[in-house]
């Protein structure tokens, strides 16, 4: 149409670009729906809520992605120039603009509230009373796990006592430290019971990342930070560092084993204490 109210010419560039956008849409739908590569196997209770939140955001953004990229591709294909026709001079529609703006704001507000509920359930809820408490110390380039042992009390630590073999400076003379277990890069916890982790760092910022448990928390020198989670699945899982901490950042790895029962865990603890 001379005033641009109909389609333009379908051009080769337009078709190719639109086709590429279509491939992009199809490929992304495939990867996010069929999930040939996806989150590590879930092993914690609160992780379910995080995964659900992710799915909610995925659905919203996925729909937006398909609609917007699809519209873009469609317009690119349809509105090529044809030498004589004018485009449509139309360039304002306050009603449509307001509608889209408000819709976007509403959708995003809903997401904020959904996200807030999950965030609050993790950070603003009470600490579980009965939990396995572990002090975790990150350093360049290992994780050290300190268990209080049967007496439930952590032995005294002192930075002056730190050596290569005693890297958290545990004072073995302290009576409360007699049953403490200190292990490097090996962490255990019983399934079904909350785990409270007290994170510290000896040198630079590290980040305690448990991919299967949806736990990630920076360990900051000078700060003691607590996170907690409830393991729901037994097995051995990897621990990674998720904040650049120096040369050995890539190999600052540990293993977390979830034992089937409190007894199995206690057995491991007793074995470890002997060493």
């Amino acid at each position, binding site marked *: 149409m001379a005033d641009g*109210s109909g389609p333009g010419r379908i051009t080769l560039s337009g078709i190719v670009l639109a086709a590429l956008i279509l491939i992009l849409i199809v490929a992304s739908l495939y990867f996010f729906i069929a999930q040939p590569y996806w989150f590590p196997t879930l092993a914690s209770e609160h992780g379910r809520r995080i995964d659900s939140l992710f799915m909610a955001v995925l659905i919203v953004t996925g729909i937006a992605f398909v609609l917007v990229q699809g519209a873009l591709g469609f317009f690119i294909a349809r509105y*090529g120039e044809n030498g004589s026709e004018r485009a449509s001079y139309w360039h304002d529609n306050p009603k449509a603009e307001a509608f889209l703006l408000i819709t976007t704001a509403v959708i995003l507000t809903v997401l904020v509230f959904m996200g807030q509920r999950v965030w609050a359930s993790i950070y603003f809820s009470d600490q579980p009373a009965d939990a396995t408490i572990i002090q975790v110390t990150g350093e360049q380039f290992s994780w050290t796990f300190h268990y209080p042992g049967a007496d439930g009390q952590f032995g005294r630590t002192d930075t002056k006592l730190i050596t290569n073999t005693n890297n958290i400076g545990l004072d073995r003379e302290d009576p409360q430290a007699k049953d403490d277990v200190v292990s490097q890069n090996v962490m255990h916890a019983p399934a079904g019971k909350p785990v409270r982790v007290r994170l510290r760092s000896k040198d630079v910022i590290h980040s305690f990342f448990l991919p299967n448990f949806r736990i990630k928390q920076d360990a900051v020198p000078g700060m003691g930070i607590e996170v907690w989670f409830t393991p729901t699945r037994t097995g051995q899982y990897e621990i990674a560092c998720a904040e650049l901490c120096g040369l050995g*950042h890539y190999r600052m790895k540990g293993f977390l084993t979830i034992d089937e029962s409190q007894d199995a865990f206690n057995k491991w603890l007793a074995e470890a204490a002997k060493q």
Partner: protein
Amino acid sequence: MSESHSGDHAHPELGFIRKYIFSTDHKIIGIQYMITAMAMAVVGGLLSMLMRYQLAWPQGVSPLMAKIFPVAYNGGVMEPGFYISLVTMHGTIMVFFLFTAVLTGGFGNFLIPLQIGARDMAFPFLNALSYWVFLLSCIVIFAALFVSSGAPMGGWTAYAPLSAIPAAAPGQATGMTLWITAIALFSASGLMGGLNYITTILTLRTRGMSMMRLPLTQWSLLVTSILGLLAFPVLLGAGILLMFDRLGGTSFFVPAGIIMNQMPVDHSGGHPLLWQHLFWFFGHPEVYIVVLPAMGMASDILSTFCRKPIFSYRMMVYSMIAIAVLSFVVWGHHMFVSGMNPFLGSVFTLTTLLIAVPSAVKTFNWLGTVWGARIRFTPAALFALGFVSMFVSGGLSGIFLGTSAADIQLQDTYFVVAHFHLVMAIAPLFAAFGGLYFWFPKMFGRFMNPTLGKIHFWFTFIGAYCVFFPMHIIGVGGQMRRIYDPTQYMFLQQQQPVNVFISISAFVLGAAQLVFLFNFLFSIFAGKRALERNPWHATTLEWTAPSPPGHGNFPPELPTVYRWPFDFSMPGEREDYVPQTVPVTITARH
């Protein structure tokens, strides 16, 4: 040479050096910025090729690489420290020395006086100085690659205490000092430039050029300059404190009780999170400093090749201002798992999703511009359209990251890398390419080869998506950032093939840029001549000047502006475009 002239009186003819090297002419300075930034891009790009080579084949032994980089590839295997230096330098060079420099320094300098109808910037000498300080900063950061104690290793974000304690990693000694120095020089250069831009845009607009008749490129440069003015000094302050922590024995960012290599480090009392707050207070506006000029340019280029006004110009301006204002209250979304008070986490989620709204408005307006258009598919047009697609992809992934609880699993993974590359690197790169193809005839009086341009576009569009889209997937799978060897982790091994795919795509993407570089450099000297002043039939003022414009831009008189820059396909007009300099007549009533 610093006075501009109206053509009334003669000027002595300048020698080659004063005309092309130590020039105070904004056009030359702009091109100097562009070429220097392109050189930095090559360096930054090569660094990333090395990174991708390592990530795809982390345990491969390469005798060839051992020959080329004997220190870095000891025994044919890359040193882990070299990898982290690559990461740090790639990020630093690209964010500052490529993107900020080419968009704000390059296009800003070239376009501002031309598009507002002025003869030059308000302070031409200061303008030239800003370029030479920028060049100095480039030299300093380049030097950081070669110091014997190693290039810096803190990441471009230089978190303390890793960046504050020279013993924390090799490369955190002289290399880190040079890094801070280069950034400080860059900030000074940016301030000089911003000062010029704001003053020029406000005071030197030609007759009739009201603010609401400015091209969106100009609005974006004005808003960006104000952002830079407010943000860069905070970075400078943080850098000063960091320098003192490193060399002066202070402890602003380093707490007491640090033990390194089982030995106590003599520091007391500072707070590592303070660095993060200061850095990101700058860092978040910085990403908008990169992307806003890209948005402005892409909008103008899109409008020109769609032969249609930009949809809702007014909302485009307001949304730019909204984004700029909001950019100062979202910085905490980089710190959700940092140990910051979780209450702040809630606040920053709210503000971050809020800033998505004006970006969405702009996206709808770009769609509205393409609807009903009559698109001329030149390389510039293709890149402007590609910009929209890339920005949408990158922007949407930001929603996951802005939602604090979802960010827990995604923070510091390749999901973040995917997001910021698409939205801060690729989208602005597309806008910059679009700008180069578009304004090349005005800059050099010749055209770039359009066939090579299209080849460049297709490979770059496909390559960019092949590199960065799969990164979302491996990020979901848990691959962390900045790790030298993902195969160390069993949970990552099964997605290693994706890393190989990404790396191969990256090599293709990199190679495609050679097509551009050849086209650009060749066309400066031997491209097809641009005989008309306005080959694209655009409407803005620069297209009324000769190609290239001489000293003083608009001989003999400055233009007068009668309309906004978007009168394309006006009903009732003879041509499908009406330049801003054409008076409004009684018959044109629409």
